[in-house]
């Protein structure tokens, strides 16, 4: 096993074991994984060269769906919440997507922003339905019909999320190597040619858009049950910006980077809030600047560079390193 593969497996193991030694980190990590799923949605869209500044919308749609379900059935059921949240975000993704896939770049970003801000305002305004700015409580749901204590539930939620994230990451990775995934990527490089292959760029983008909305939805449901509360802030534009931030931090276009970025972001944020309470935003801001200016391929890019250097130093790597061609066919 090469180092390049071993390190991620070790990191995954560390993440899985960390809560055993640091109980309080469990919920933080669950939140990070939930965000990581949503960030994966952003990463997916980045492959098509589009940046949404409103994907928190789908995060919020799913989170509120879970909250409403919980309210309607006095607690609710985790599996139902996930199914409903995912369904709602896919549906909203389709509806919003039908409009926004006609636009690109800044306009794409701005329209997404507009939709999310409308949803945000509705959540905030319709106090008697949504609880207004203070949001709704999400009581601890049952899991396949079983009532759980807090500790057990949190452990289950964490490991469940971890498994879900690994599975989803694998699926997205495969999707991106599939023919349709590759067509999706060509929206970034040459939509005209795609149309001249007889493929609808809008429909292709819509497929990816709906998938990305679903990913945000999954993240939203997990966040809602892990936090025990949903607020309109879930749909606020700063939240969308944060998702894009994490995507860039992890490494634009990297599936693994979405989760690495989310965990590092959460760690920086928690530490900054604890040790630099007055300037945590500033810390994050400088962190983001440093990444963009000095490591624009994000943490995953840094890792690749480090591994490249380590491998080229190893004496047994005798044969001349073949120039790696990014995106080469397997």
């Amino acid at each position, binding site marked *: 096993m090469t180092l390049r593969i071993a390190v991620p497996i070790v990191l995954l193991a560390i993440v899985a074991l960390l809560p055993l030694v640091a109980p309080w980190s469990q919920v933080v990590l669950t939140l990070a994984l939930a965000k990581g799923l949503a960030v994966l949605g952003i990463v997916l869209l980045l492959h098509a060269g589009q940046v949404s500044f409103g994907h928190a919308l789908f995060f919020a749609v799913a989170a509120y769906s879970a909250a409403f379900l919980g309210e309607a059935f006095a607690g609710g059921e985790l599996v139902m919440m996930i199914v409903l949240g995912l369904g709602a975000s896919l549906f909203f993704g389709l509806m919003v997507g039908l409009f926004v896939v006609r636009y690109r770049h800044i306009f794409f970003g*701005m329209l997404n922003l507009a939709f999310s801000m409308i949803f945000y305002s509705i959540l*905030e305004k319709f106090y008697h339905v949504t609880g207004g700015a203070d949001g709704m409580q999400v009581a601890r749901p049952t899991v396949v019909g079983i009532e759980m204590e807090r500790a057990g539930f949190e452990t289950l939620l964490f490991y469940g999320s971890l498994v879900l994230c690994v599975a989803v990451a694998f699926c997205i990775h495969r999707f991106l190597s599939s023919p349709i995934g590759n067509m999706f990527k060509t929206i970034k490089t040459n939509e005209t040619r795609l149309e001249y292959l007889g493929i609808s760029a809008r429909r292709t983008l819509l497929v990816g858009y709906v998938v990305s909305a679903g990913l945000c939805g999954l993240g939203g449901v997990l966040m809602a049950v892990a936090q025990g509360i949903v607020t309109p802030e879930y749909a606020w534009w700063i939240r969308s910006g944060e998702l894009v931030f994490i995507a860039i931090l992890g490494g634009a276009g990297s599936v693994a980077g979405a989760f690495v970025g989310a965990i590092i972001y959460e760690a920086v944020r928690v530490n900054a809030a604890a040790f630099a309470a007055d300037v945590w935003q500033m810390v994050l801001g400088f962190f983001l600047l440093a990444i963009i200016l000095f490591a624009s391929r994000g943490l995953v890019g840094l890792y690749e560079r480090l591994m490249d250097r380590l491998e080229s130093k190893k004496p047994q790597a005798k044969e001349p390193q073949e120039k790696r061609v990014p995106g080469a066919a397997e």
Partner: protein
Amino acid sequence: MNAQLFALAVFDGVAYAALVFMVAVGLTLIFGVLRILNVAHGSFYAIGAYLTASIGGAIFAAGYAPWLALPLMFLAAAIVGIVLGGPIERLLLRRIYAKEDALQLLVTFAVFMILEDVQRLIWGTQPYFEATALQQLGNIEVFGVFYTTYQLVVLPLVAITVLISLRLFLRKTLSGKLILAVTEDRETATAIGIDADKVYLLTFVVGAALAGFGGALASATTSVVPGMGADMIVLSFAVVATAGLGQIEGAAIAALLIGLGRSFAVYLMPELQVLIPYLIMLLVLLVRPEGLFGVVRTRKI
């Protein structure tokens, strides 16, 4: 809704539109030239307001003449443009023009986050309020309702003046023409030897100063509080997108549209007030994807 209320709604809408326009016009100017949607613009607005309120509070308390309020606003705008905007363009943005849209936007987002905390470190979290300029001018009674002269007359006048002077600056002066040339066709402009670096710097400084000026004007009518920049920036995004990116006159019309829409909502359906800007933006973009005054660019193949 009777004629009196109709008129009141119009007055309120226009005053509000004037303030929003000041911020949006800088944003759209910067976008037109640099092709960057500057999130930190909200911070420039807030800092302009803080500067005016804090300096004004200090000098008027020390007994200086109230007429200094207006020059002070210009000073605050200049400080924001030169001290803040200049270095940000020079040291930061210049390094990222070759990068993707998303990265450029995120850089300004990072600047925004940093400036939010800078504001808090400098000015703390207590609200500032400095209304000397406004109190000097007194009130006007219209239909039995008192308006401040500042809001009813000064703000719209200033906005129109800014619009006209910006137009003249862009059409009549050399620097302005250079900015316009780069806005319309960046490649050709640089190809014929226009110093794009200088134009970018100038544009950013002017744009930032306009945001600062907007903040300075607003400081007379509102409390200057942490977080005021975040709200303003989304609103001016909506204005700019509705108008069409880079459209200066368009921004004035879109600001008016959104300002009036908002004030009529307060009279007719208060619950819709916050939704109005986004609904207008959405409706406009659905019908005209490039904004009210935007130009469609087809790709040459």
